[in-house]
């Protein structure tokens, strides 16, 4: 009885051990390398530049995005997108909330598709 219990314990340890080893061996979660946060970070932007220095990290309002991504310039750069310009639309003009579609720490999404079929690829 005792030996059986010990064997199971050992097995568990080994299983957990290998589990840890594999995750630790990988430099970074590859699924996160495509996220916008990684791109911002690769461009030399620090967490604090968006989130501020407060102990509790604050959510980032679109006005912060706009300090680098000028809304007008952005809208002009996507003016030819098909079938509509997502950055100058009839709901929000050029003043949409970036966070609705572009996420930093999870996959971005195409909010337009909740009602329309626009097939935009959202970075």
């Amino acid at each position: 009885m005792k030996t059986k219990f010990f064997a199971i314990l050992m097995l568990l340890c080994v299983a957990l051990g290998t589990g840890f080893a594999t995750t630790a061996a990988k430099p970074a979660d590859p699924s996160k390398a495509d996220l916008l946060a990684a791109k911002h970070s690769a461009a030399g932007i620090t967490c604090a530049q968006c989130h501020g220095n407060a102990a509790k990290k604050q959510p980032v309002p679109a006005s912060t995005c706009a300090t680098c991504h000028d809304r007008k310039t952005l809208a002009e750069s996507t003016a030819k997108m098909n079938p509509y310009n997502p950055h100058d639309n009839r709901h929000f003009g050029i003043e949409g909330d970036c966070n609705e579609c572009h996420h930093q720490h999870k996959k971005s999404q195409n909010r337009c598709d909740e009602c329309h079929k626009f097939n935009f690829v959202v970075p």
Partner: protein
Amino acid sequence: MENEKKELDQYTRNVLEQGVSRRNFLRNSAFGAVGAGLLSVPGMASTAAKAGADKKEEAFGKSSDGAATLPFLPRPKPIAEKEITATHTFDVVVIGAGAAGVPAALAAAESGARVAVIQKAPFALSQGNTGSGIDLAHSEKAGVEALVAKICEDSSHRCNPALIRQWAYNSGEAVSWVIDRAKQGGSPVIDQGNQQHGDVMELSGYKLNWVTSFFGPKPYTTGDGMRHLAITAEKAGVQFFYNTPAEQLVQSKSGEVQGVIAKDRDGKFVRFLAKKGVILATGDYQNNKPMCDYFVPDVKNFGRKQMGKTGDGFVMAYWAGGVIEPIGHTKMLHDFDGGPAPMCDMPFLSVTRDGKRFVNETVAMSVTNNYLRDAKNAGHYAQIFDADYMTQAQGWPGKAIPPEGLKNYMPDVEGPKKGVFPSLTNTHVANTLEELAGKLEVDPVQLAATVKRYNELVALGKDDDFGKPAKYLKPVVKAPFYGIHRTVRVSAICSGMLVNENHQALDGEGKAIRGLYVIGNLGGGFYGGVDYPLTVYGLSLGRCYTFGYLAGRHVAKL
């Protein structure tokens, strides 16, 4: 006070008793505290009672299934004087530049008031095309009253008839005025007169004529229309503050609403004081999920047609002492984009996504949502007909659009579309039912079985399954086959705050709250049924314009 209360009409008394207000919470919580014996501890009474009250508020805020709590009505956070970066003073402050707010602002300015409009979005924003009013000069009073009776019936007699009458007797003037002033701002709006009202004009046999503003065709809508009307309003002196969501009302100790604090686009607080009154016109709350779960749980699985409608006005009016109409709010769901609007109520064979027939198809689109509330169907269904539909549907309600015209609604047909939002079109044609099922995203095997059964009933000349009248039973046999995939989504929720006939908010005692007016879908008393009725096309916008026009003038003249 009691005397005053006795004079209130039964609609108002009912909402005072059953509605959601601070007073009802406090009343409930006081009972709770006494029950727990907390009030008997001298000196501790107030704090203990308050703690009890907070708990009770939470409990009272639960819907019967325990799913929703009241956090959707968060208590306004105190804003320190030093956080307020600017204060502006006007006579009238309108909150929300939509179908009710813009007309209210212009009407107030034309009556001599200095007016500000605080708008959450970067420009005026609204939706829809048609807004209706009665052309009184060319209508018989009996006809107007018959229509009032019909609208009350459509709302299951749960509305405030006084408000329906107010719309009926003022809407012609208000809608004409909106048309005229929007044109001055450059709008292509037209008066469609009786064009959309054929059915309702035959209702009573009495004479009835219409003034109908049509802001269209799509992609031009009332949103564009209100932007054009705002140009006229600016010329009349109205100041618009865009990207400036209102956050909380400024209220005196005695309860008078004196202004509003809003956030400007840099996130700074700005205060707008209103010498005569604040007019709240922030629309509905369809994008506030907990609030929907609480007041109108039926819409849980449906998509939404609007964005950013988080019920901000409800929170503000509630904390100012206002009363929200009780649970069971009226919803508006439709789809005029998937296929032609005049075909939406034609009793063609209709099926769910499973390919099954689900209803006697004489049921109007405005209520079909009630059969499609589950997560799988979520408002989706398909109308199906065959190559002979033009002859088969003669004499049916609505109007069949010929095949050439249907192409305008077919996403698979190349070429420019006119008067529609191309990305919302969803009409299809195919040579086989199987192919059609694929395009409509309907189960093909079940569809084949359903059509087979339907054709048997047609041959029988009796709808043994759903009792649809024989004149609407037509075979689906001849290629090409047509289908319209409709997706009803929430256009609006049209229940709101308790108001009197001046559109002034009432508190839990039934007393008017000084300085606070509520219009548009945020205003209560105009509906009350399970669904917004589509008897009068454009009733919703017509009512928004009319009450905006009346409230704006009333407040300006105080």
